[in-house]
C-alpha cells in the first residue's frame, strides 16, 4: 500500500530547457552558416555550445541535488531505468543506420557496380573488391589494418569494462577505495583509447592517405569510428562526473542509478566497438 500511495516526484518549473533550446538553435544556425562559409557561423556555433554546457551543468546539478535530497522514490528510480534503457536503444538504431550503410555497400552496391551492365557500360574494369574507394578513385590509399592499434584498443575497451564492473562491486560492497580506483582506471583507459584513436587518424591521413574523401571506404570508416569515438568521449565524461560524485560522497549500495546509467552507457559503447572491430577493421 505504501508503494502505491508514494507520490511521484514532479519537478518545479525550470529555466534550463529553454537554455538548451536556444543553445541548439544557435548551434544549428551557426553550423549551417559556417559550412557555407558565412562569417558569423563559428561565433554562433560556439555560443551555442557554451550555452549548452551551461545548461547541462545547471540541469544535471539540479538533478543531483534532487537525488541527494531524497526526492526520488522507488518509482522515479524505475522510470530512470526504463528511460536509460530506451535511450540506449535509440542510440543502437542510430549506429544501425551507419552499419546498415556499410553492409549495403559491401554486400550490394560494390558487387553491383563491378558486374553486369554497370561494369560493362559505365565502370569498365572496376573490380569492386573491398576495401574500395569506388570506380572513380583518383588516389590510392592503404586501408587500416586490424591488428595494430585497433586490436590494442579492443583490449583497452574490454579491460575498461572489467575495471568498471569491479568498481561497481566495490560500490555494492561498500568498498569505496575499490570504487574510486576502478572508476579512475576506467576513465584512464577511455582516455588512452581516445588518444590512440586520434593517433590512428593522424597516421591514416599522413601515412596511409586514407581520408574522409577516400571514397566509400573512407566515408564509412571515418563516420563509424568517428561517431563511436564521440560516444566514448561522452561516456568518459559521464564517468568522470560519477567519479567526482563519488568523491563528494554520493551513492550508496542502494542508491546509485547515476553510476549505473553511466556504466550501462559505457558497456553499450564497448559492444558497439566490438562490432566495429569485426566489420570495419577485421573483415
Amino acid at each position: 500500500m505504501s508503494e502505491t500511495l508514494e507520490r511521484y516526484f514532479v519537478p518545479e518549473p525550470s529555466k534550463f530547457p529553454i537554455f538548451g533550446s536556444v543553445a541548439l538553435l544557435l548551434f544549428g544556425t551557426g553550423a549551417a552558416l559556417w559550412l557555407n562559409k558565412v562569417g558569423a557561423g563559428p561565433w554562433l556555433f560556439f555560443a551555442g555550445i557554451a550555452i549548452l554546457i551551461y545548461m547541462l551543468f545547471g540541469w544535471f546539478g539540479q538533478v543531483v541535488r534532487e537525488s541527494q535530497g531524497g526526492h526520488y522514490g522507488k518509482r522515479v528510480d524505475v522510470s530512470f531505468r526504463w528511460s536509460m534503457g530506451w535511450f540506449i536503444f535509440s542510440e543502437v538504431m542510430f549506429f544501425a543506420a551507419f552499419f546498415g550503410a556499410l553492409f549495403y555497400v559491401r554486400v550490394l552496391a560494390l558487387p553491383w557496380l563491378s558486374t553486369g551492365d554497370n561494369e560493362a557500360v559505365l565502370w569498365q574494369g572496376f573490380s569492386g573488391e573491398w576495401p574500395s574507394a569506388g570506380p572513380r578513385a583518383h588516389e590510392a590509399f592503404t586501408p587500416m589494418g586490424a591488428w595494430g592499434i585497433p586490436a590494442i584498443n579492443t583490449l583497452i575497451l574490454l579491460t575498461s569494462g572489467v575495471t568498471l564492473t569491479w568498481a561497481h562491486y566495490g560500490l555494492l560492497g561498500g568498498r569505496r577505495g575499490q570504487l574510486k580506483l576502478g572508476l579512475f582506471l576506467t576513465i584512464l583507459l577511455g582516455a588512452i583509447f581516445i588518444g590512440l584513436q586520434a593517433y590512428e587518424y593522424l597516421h591514416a591521413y599522413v601515412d596511409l592517405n586514407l581520408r574522409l574523401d577516400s571514397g566509400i571506404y573512407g566515408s564509412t570508416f571515418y563516420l563509424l569510428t568517428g561517431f563511436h569515438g564521440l560516444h566514448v568521449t561522452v561516456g568518459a565524461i559521464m564517468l568522470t562526473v560519477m567519479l567526482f560524485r563519488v568523491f563528494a560522497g554520493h551513492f550508496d549500495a542502494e542508491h546509485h542509478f547515476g553510476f549505473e546509467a553511466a556504466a550501462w552507457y559505457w558497456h553499450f559503447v564497448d559492444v558497439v566497438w566490438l562490432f566495429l572491430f569485426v566489420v570495419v577493421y577485421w573483415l
Partner: protein
Amino acid sequence: MTTLTHDPIDTASGHSHAHGPTGLMRWITTTNHKDIGTMYMIFSFIMFLSGGVMALTIRAELFQPGLQVVEPEFFNQLTTMHGLVMVFGAIMPAFVGFANWMVPLMIGASDMAFARMNNWSFWLLPPAAILLLGSFFVPGGATAAGWTLYAPLSVQMGMGMDLAIFAIHIMGISSIMGAINIVVTILNMRAPGMTMMKMPLFCWTWLITAYLLIAVMPVLAGAVTMILTDRHFGTSFFNAAGGGDPVMYQHIFWFFGHPEVYIMILPAFGIVSQIIPTFARKPLFGYASMVYATASIAILSFVVWAHHMFTTGMPAAGQLFFMYATMLIAVPTGVKVFNWVATMWRGSMTFESPMLWATGFIFVFTMGGFTGLICAIAPIDIQVQDTYYVVAHFHYVLVAGSLFALFAGAYYWLPKWTGHMPNEFLGKLHFWCSIVFFNITFFPMHFLGLAGMPRRIPDYALQFADFNALATIGAFGFGLSQLIFLVVVVKCVRGGEKAEAQSWEGAEGLEWTVPSPAPHHTFEDAPVFKG
C-alpha cells in the same frame, strides 16, 4: 466501469507548486503536462496554417496550366516545405500534445514521468521551426529536394538544405525524448489496478507509436547526417563514383519513412477507438484484437519500406517480398475497421461533433487505405508511382485520417481542456464543409494520377486542366473551413455551455472523473482503478 476511492484532486495539501512563475515565464518554464500539451497543440496548429498556406500557393499555381504565381524552383521549395512542415510540424506534434494532455489523465498519473524533460521536448520545436521556415530567406532559398530529401538532389541544394538537416536533427531529439517520456509514463505510472490490458486504447496506440519513434527517428538522423557529410566533407555514401549508391539513401530514408506514416496514424486509431464506444454507448468491440492489430501494424511497418521504391529497379524477388508484406498490412488494419463497425452495431448512437468526425474518419481513411493497397501492387505502382494518385492516397490517409482524427479528438476533449462544451452547430458545420471540400480537392487527384500527371511539377499538360482547377477550388474551400475550427476553439476557451466532469453521456475512463476543466494538478495521489 471506473470508480474512484477518493477525491481525485488534492485539496488538502495546499499547492506549494502553484507559486511558479507567471506570464510568459510560466509557459517557458512549465513542467505541467497540461500546459505543455496545450503548447504542443497551439504550435502544431500554427504549423498547420503555415503548411496550409504553402499548399494553397501550390494549388494556386496549379489552378491553370502555365506558370503564373511562382517560379519552378520556388514551387519545389514550397512542395518540400509543405511536406516537412505538415509531417514534422503539424501532425506529429499535435499527437504528442494529445498524449501529453490525455495519457496522464487516462492512466491516473500525476504528470509525465520526466516533467522537466517534457518541457524541453516541446521547446525544441520552435527552434526547429525557425531553422526550417527561416531557410526560405537564406541565399538559394529553402531546400527543394522533396520532403524525402533524396540524394543526390539534396546534395546539390544550397544552404537551406543544411538548415533543414539541423532542423530534422533537433526535431528528432525532441521526438525521441517525447517518446521515451510517454513509454516510461505508461509503463511505470499507471494507477494501481490498471493493468496493461485494461488501459484505454489511446494509451496503447501511443505506447506502440512511441516505440516506433524511438526506433526510427535515429535512423532518419543517420540518413541526413550522411547527406551532410556528402555535401560538405567529401564522403561518397550516395555517390556511385566513390562506391556509394543513391538508392541506399532511399532504403535508409524509407526504413524511417514507412514507420513514420504509421506514427502519424496509430494515435489517430487510438482517438477514434475512444470516441466510437462513447457515442455508441457500448464497449469497444474486440479490445484485445485492437491491441494485437496495432502491434502487428507496427511490426510489419519495419519490413515494407521498399514499396516506395518499386521503380528504382529492385530485383524481382525484392519487389515481390515488399509487395506481399505491404499487402499484409491490410489485414490488421481491416480488423480495426471491422471492430469499429462492430462497436457501432446495435449501439445507441448519437452524432455529436466528435462522433461525426470519427465516423467520417473511418469512411474516408478506408478509401485512402484501399488506394494504398492498390499502390502496393508492384505492377500497378509502376504506373502510379510519383503521380497524383500517390498524392491522393496519402492525403486521404493523412488529412482525412490523421487530421480528421485530431479534430475528432479535439472536439471530444475540448470540454475537459476548457470546461466548456464546443459549439455543436459550428462543429458540425466544420465537419460537413471539411469532408465535402476535402473530397473535392483530393478525389480528382486519383484521376489525374491514373491519367498520367506526375507529382512535384509546377505546370502540366492541358488534359489535366479541369481536375486541377476543381482541386484548387476545393483546397481553398477546405482551407477556409479550417478557420471555423479556430472560431470553435476560441469560443470554447472564452465561454459557452459549462461542461460536467463526465462531459459526454457514454464517456468512460479516469479522465472523465476529474472536473472540467481539468485542474492544473490531478491524481497527485494515485486513484485506484477498478476496470
